């Protein structure tokens, strides 16, 4: 590498946040002059973020932990970024997901928001850089600020959707602010008890200090806040409406990233800030969380069964997936944690894929009620193919990535002897299968009423109908939406095959040694 690149590359921890952020602002500014310039700027910003992320991924894979001191002040006095293998992995996932969705959503964003599209790009990029910062930062207060920038952008991104979106976004805002404020209150307690804001520093202090009621309270507050942010079961109410009525371009990235990053934060706080003994020694907290997750899985799955539109059904699946990760992590053993951490990555990928497929369908059909899905296997074979793959991933069928994280989660449940959780995971697979096959059946066996007789081309020998459906003309989504979707579908398979490498290189080193 030439010296300039060397020089520059050591800054990747900050560039991953700042490059998208600056270019996002540039997108807004340039978009004010000419709308056409906004997209390239946003694209460039996320691309540079992705490059920085991959660069860090390679570096951390070699065993390095990247620490970056903002403004040159050493922690605990200044703010530091600390990127270990797992955060690098999540950062890469965030940037990749955001970039792919940006490309895929360009058309719909520019159609929906017209002159306000530059503002959409800017908010989108702010959102992503906020999430990236949350993952990278080692300072608990900086985390709050970044959380808020991500959330504020999210509220705006959601609020521009369907007619019901503003109300859903407002509910999300209230719930999100409660979550963030609980977290901030927790930060206050931590600060009162330790006087520090740096995670590593706090961990050291807490190690020396031993059990402390203030820290227990801080722990409870932070966890409550994060549970609300990640839409874990009893406080998931904001999520289905917000994601259903948001514009597709927004839903894709939000569903894939928001909850996952909150879970990442939870994992990071428990593993590298609070003493592990606080979380797992008594067993009460951990058990309660796993049971909560178990109930959450069932509740979410059954609510998903009751839905009448596809996108809304998927939002409940997001709730279920959150419960997988929460439960898996709180099992407290290595397999469960690995499963939860792996599932963050896998779920981000498969949620993006499935929502992108729905976005394609909605772009073509204009709606996503189950009755609007008829005949889709004929008219949109590629989108449906991707949908099938992502459906299989969500059900947990090998060799898609969803299977392998489920593997770890269930084996963690078996190791811990937590049969309720195991049964919940297995039942969720079955219920997901029912949900997706319901969709597949409609798309495969039924034909839109108005196409009978008109559109069927009977004379082509190959498509001659014996007793199948009348042939429908193909009406795929536009190519700029289709190619990202297919890439994502293939990624789901690739991630499955790379599971071993990902776990060994990136997840295992991030779990402390005392977790068995």
């Amino acid at each position: 590498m030439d010296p300039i690149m060397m020089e520059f590359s050591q800054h990747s921890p900050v560039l991953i946040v700042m490059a998208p952020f600056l270019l996002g602002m540039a997108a807004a500014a340039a978009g004010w002059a000419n709308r056409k310039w906004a997209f390239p700027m946003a694209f460039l910003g996320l691309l540079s973020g992705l490059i920085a992320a991959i660069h860090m991924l390679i570096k951390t894979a070699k065993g390095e932990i990247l620490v970056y001191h903002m403004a040159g002040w050493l922690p605990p006095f200044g703010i530091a970024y600390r990127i270990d293998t797992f955060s690098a992995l999540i950062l890469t996932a965030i940037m990749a997901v955001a970039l792919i969705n940006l490309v895929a959503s360009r058309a719909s964003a520019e159609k929906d928001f017209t002159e306000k599209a530059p503002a959409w790009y800017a908010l989108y990029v702010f959102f992503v850089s906020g999430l990236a910062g949350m993952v990278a930062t080692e300072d608990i207060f900086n985390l709050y600020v970044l959380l808020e920038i991500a959330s504020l952008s999210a509220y705006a991104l959601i609020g521009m959707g369907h007619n019901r979106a503003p109300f859903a976004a407002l509910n999300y805002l209230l719930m999100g602010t409660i979550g963030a404020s609980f977290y901030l209150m927790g930060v206050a307690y931590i600060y009162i008890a330790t006087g520090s804001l740096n995670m590593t520093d706090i961990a050291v202090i807490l190690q020396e200090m031993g059990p402390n009621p203030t820290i227990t309270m801080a722990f409870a507050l932070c966890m409550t806040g994060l549970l609300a942010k990640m839409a874990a079961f009893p406080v998931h109410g904001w999520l289905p409406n917000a994601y259903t009525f948001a514009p597709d371009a927004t839903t894709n990235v939000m569903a894939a990233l928001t909850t996952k990053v909150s879970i990442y934060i939870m994992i990071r706080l428990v593993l590298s800030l609070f003493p592990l003994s606080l979380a797992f020694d008594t067993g009460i907290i951990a058990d309660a969380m796993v049971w909560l997750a178990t109930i959450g899985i069932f509740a979410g799955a059954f609510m998903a069964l009751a839905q009448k539109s596809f996108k809304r059904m998927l939002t409940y699946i997001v709730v279920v997936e959150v419960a997988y990760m929460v439960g898996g992590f709180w099992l407290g053993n290595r397999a469960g944690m690995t499963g939860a951490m792996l599932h963050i990555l896998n779920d981000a990928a498969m949620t993006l894929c499935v929502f992108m497929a729905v976005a394609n369908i909605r772009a073509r059909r204009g709606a996503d009620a189950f009755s609007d899905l008829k005949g889709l296997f004929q008219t949109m074979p590629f989108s449906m193919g991707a949908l099938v793959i992502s459906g299989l991933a969500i059900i947990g069928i090998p060799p898609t990535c969803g299977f392998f994280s489920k593997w770890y989660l269930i084996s963690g449940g078996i190791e811990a002897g937590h049969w309720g959780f195991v049964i919940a995971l297995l039942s969720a697979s079955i219920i997901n299968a029912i949900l997706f096959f319901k969709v597949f059946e409609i798309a495969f066996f039924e034909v839109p009423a108005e196409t009978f007789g008109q559109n069927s081309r009977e004379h082509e020998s190959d498509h001659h109908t014996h007793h199948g459906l009348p042939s429908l003309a193909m009406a795929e989504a536009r190519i700029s939406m289709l190619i990202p979707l297919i890439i994502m579908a293939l990624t789901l398979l690739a991630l499955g095959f790379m599971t071993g490498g990902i776990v060994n290189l990136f997840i295992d080193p991030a779990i402390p040694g005392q977790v068995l």
Partner: protein
Amino acid sequence: METLYSITPLLALLVSLAAVPAIVSSRNMNAREAWTFAAAFIKFGLVLSMAPFVLQGGTIHFTIAEVIPGVPIALKVDAFGLLFALVSSSLWIVTSAYSIGYMRGLDEHSQTRYFSFFAISLSATIGVAFSANLLTMYLFYEMLSFATYPLVAHNQDHEGRVSGRKYIAYLLGASVLLAFPAMLYVYVQAGTLDFTAGGVVAGNVNSGTLLVLALMLTFGFAKAGIMPLHSWLPVAMVAPTPVSALLHAVAVVKVGVFCVFRALTGTLGTGPLSDAGIGTIIAIFASITILVSSLMALSQDELKRRLAFSTVGQLSYIVLGVALLTPAALQGAMMHITMHAFGKITLFFCAGAIFVASGKKYISQMKGIGRRMPITMTAFFIGALSVIGLPPAGGFLSKWYLVIGTLESGQIAFLVVLLVSSILNAAYFLPIVYRAFFCPPEEDLYKNESIKESPPWCLYPLSITAIGCLVLFFYPQPFFRLAQLAVSQIMGG
């Protein structure tokens, strides 16, 4: 025992998968079917090329990806796997030819989709055959379930929808709820899932748990069709006949018993199973299935459904062979995979040929049809002989070994089951043959002069498999040798 690391198994696996894009993008039917044939022959060639090495007692390994510590996605070609792969890949060639005749003969819709998923199914089948561990096998098992769904639901009508739903519900439900957790439990206890002689769980679990695991694995691979998880098979008969023939007589169902076979012998181990007396329990389930399904077959009027129930029974022969856990019984079970495959595919081909030529689906309509379609019905007779287990058809040999196996294990009750079921088999097959040849044809057969032998693309394949049944009786050595080898590998000899 020699081991070799080679990519050939992967190539054999992928070749039909690689054919899919070519099939999809083909401009006309001939090109599409040419691709299918090319893939089929290459696949068979690749499988065959591994035979000499394996026949010498060697195994071929290939690791695709290291996915979970101790459990890679890996391929291993041993005698048993090769035996199964040989059967399914050779029959794919025949079935491809038959498909052309059948699909064109009936002018079916969506043939491209049909051929594509057929190719994918074959890949999955070969994948199961060559799996080195339970995870890999599970992977291909599920792949097969999903790849065959569009084939079962091919007609895209209401019946197809209901059948497809039942099909996927049984297969997926059983595998996710039973086989998957059992596999994970084994993994958590043993830390590995490789198929090894003597199993991997020995010493890690008590006999109660072992029994639960054995039952979960046996029923989890519901493609084996052990009652009460058998009823997907008769409903899956709505699929086009070549699908029923290859998949629901050879590939899919045999994958089921193959998986049960592997899971019981390679994962749980013959030793622990027989020590705990679990084999007998599974054998009882298998016996019940054999008898009940044979009785049910008697009452079916639709030919394909009768064949389906017959298949359910025959599959349980194999499971019974496994459950007896003696060398002869295992060998008989393996031989039966081959023999039943050839016999049953012939029968299905015949059923399909009759449907193509005359549109007849019901046995009661088939009086005298043997006079119009002599070749077809002769083949049917040979296939029936094989399935019943009478010389000079191959089925006799495998049944013979199963009988020896029951004697070896000293469980005479199962011998009785075998004999009674053979009589029942004869009772539901021979009347069809009798009726076809010796009953006067029905009125409408005379009226409709156009009924004659089915098109050559249908006729030749069924003749070939019928001859195959006979040949296997007189020259079973390759399969025989493979089965012997496999037993010694499984029993750890």
